[in-house]
């Protein structure tokens, strides 16, 4: 080859390279790979037995099909997925800062946003796979009670949720680029979502004075919409309020996160701390 290599616009091939890299690395940790999948079975088994304590037809479970096991499994499976979308980007930035690979990635022609997305793609896809496997295990071995599934509801709620949580992830990554640790987005949303988002119990059980906080966090609408679409045989129109709420979150978070990320990269380059840890 003479002169400079013919450089093409980065795209699918670059993302594929990130995926291949991470899969190769993951396969060198075979026990961790297997243990991560085994954890799914144990989680389902735990909620299977906890569900025996909750009588069928409990009123607060009514809007979600009435079965606590199905309610909890969908909540836990999707909360794990949303957590990864919310924290995955920041985690890969932090990991690359600590491992020392970030600088080598940033001197390549690949734009910073694609470095960030590519670096987290494997974790995101693996978590999607884990979520699907979680539901499949619950269905095959523990009697997950799916209703008449609304494909349109699942697809739209899923898409808007992913956009929403990826935006939170970009905000988190922006914070980590500049301040390195102590990411408040992850802490606030991670902690609050577990308690107030209705992951393992219905939001309706919360005292009224705190229930209103649930309406301010996107996980409430994401899980609500997903459970109605998967478990409660809800018509598409019944999921529309959740879809509208998620769309509103997206409308605010997408531009906010993009601006924050641009400012964070610029500040880190100005301060000379892009690859510091």
């Amino acid at each position, binding site marked *: 080859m003479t002169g400079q*290599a013919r450089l093409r616009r980065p795209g699918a091939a670059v993302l594929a390279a990130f995926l291949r*890299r991470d899969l190769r690395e993951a396969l060198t940790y075979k026990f961790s790979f297997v243990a991560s999948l085994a954890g799914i079975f144990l989680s389902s088994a735990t909620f299977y037995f906890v569900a025996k304590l909750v009588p069928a037809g409990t009123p607060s479970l009514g809007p979600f099909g009435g079965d606590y096991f199905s309610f909890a499994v969908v909540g836990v499976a999707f909360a794990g997925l949303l957590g990864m979308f919310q924290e995955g980007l920041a985690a890969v930035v932090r990991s690359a800062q600590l491992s020392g690979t970030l600088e*080598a990635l940033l001197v390549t022609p690949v734009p910073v946003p694609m470095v960030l997305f590519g670096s987290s793609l494997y974790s995101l896809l693996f978590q999607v796979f884990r979520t699907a496997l979680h539901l499949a295990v619950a269905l095959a071995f523990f009697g997950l009670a799916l209703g008449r599934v609304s494909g349109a509801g699942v697809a739209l709620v899923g898409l808007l949720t992913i956009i929403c949580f990826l935006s939170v992830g970009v905000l988190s990554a922006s914070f980590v680029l500049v301040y390195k640790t102590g990411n408040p987005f992850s802490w606030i949303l991670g902690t609050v979502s577990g308690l107030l988002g209705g992951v393992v119990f219905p939001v309706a059980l919360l005292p009224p004075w705190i229930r209103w906080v649930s309406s301010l966090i996107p996980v409430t609408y994401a899980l609500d919409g997903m459970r109605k679409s998967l478990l409660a045989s809800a018509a598409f129109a019944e999921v529309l309020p959740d879809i509208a709420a998620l769309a509103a979150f997206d409308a605010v978070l997408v531009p906010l996160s993009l601006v924050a990320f641009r400012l964070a990269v610029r500040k880190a380059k100005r301060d000379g701390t892009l690859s510091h840890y």
Partner: protein
Amino acid sequence: MSEAPVLLAEKLVKRYPIFRGFRELVFKPFDRRTVTALDGLDLEVGRGRVFCLLGPNGAGKTTLIKILAGLVLPDGGRALVDGHDVAREPGPARTAVGTAVSDERSFYWRLTGRQNLEFFGALYGLRGAARDRRIEEVLRIAGLDGAAGLRFNGYSTGMRQMLAFARALLADAAILLVDEPTRSLDPQAADRIRSFLRDELAGRQGKTILWATHDLGEAADCADDIAVISRGRIHLSGPAASLAGGGRAALHQAYERAVGGGEGRP
């Protein structure tokens, strides 16, 4: 210099903010203090030259390399890489240089040397058979063709440094930035790296090399041109033949006069 320089810095300024403790942040929130890394630095590197940037620790060498590599934005002045302003045209500027990030932590330790190069090759836009050919080529140039299938964590420090050069060569950029490439190497490995840069990359491949070092002997032996940097400024610059023509002792005296026995940034 008759031909346009491939690396150009004009009145380049970089100041880093000084870390402030909680107390200062609370009681003096607007008191933003900085330390000056580059203080109006001017530099020109001609095509095909081995240019050694010689200076003590904290002189500003790494900051200049990082600005040219697109990792740090300057606060003033401008820096051009093959005619592209690093602040205004970061994409073309980054593709015009190969930066040898010599930190051994910049690789994926559980992947083999070849797998690491396959990954970074993809980031440089190389695909399929062309990528594989280029990887074989840079492995051969770096003398690692026999070790390409070994995991990176099995490489010696010298092999890791050579793999960093192989990675920097993937895109076949005409300009290479190398920052203290012989640091932490034993004398024999350091000599191999020096002759690799001087004879192979500059001599046979015709690369322009900006080479930051604090080793006077390295600069005297390998450079076409030398610039002495201290406290963010170039104090002395010229062809190595004139600066080091009287041997290492003469270069040492010139260096001492230029730096004044001073250190760079603390």
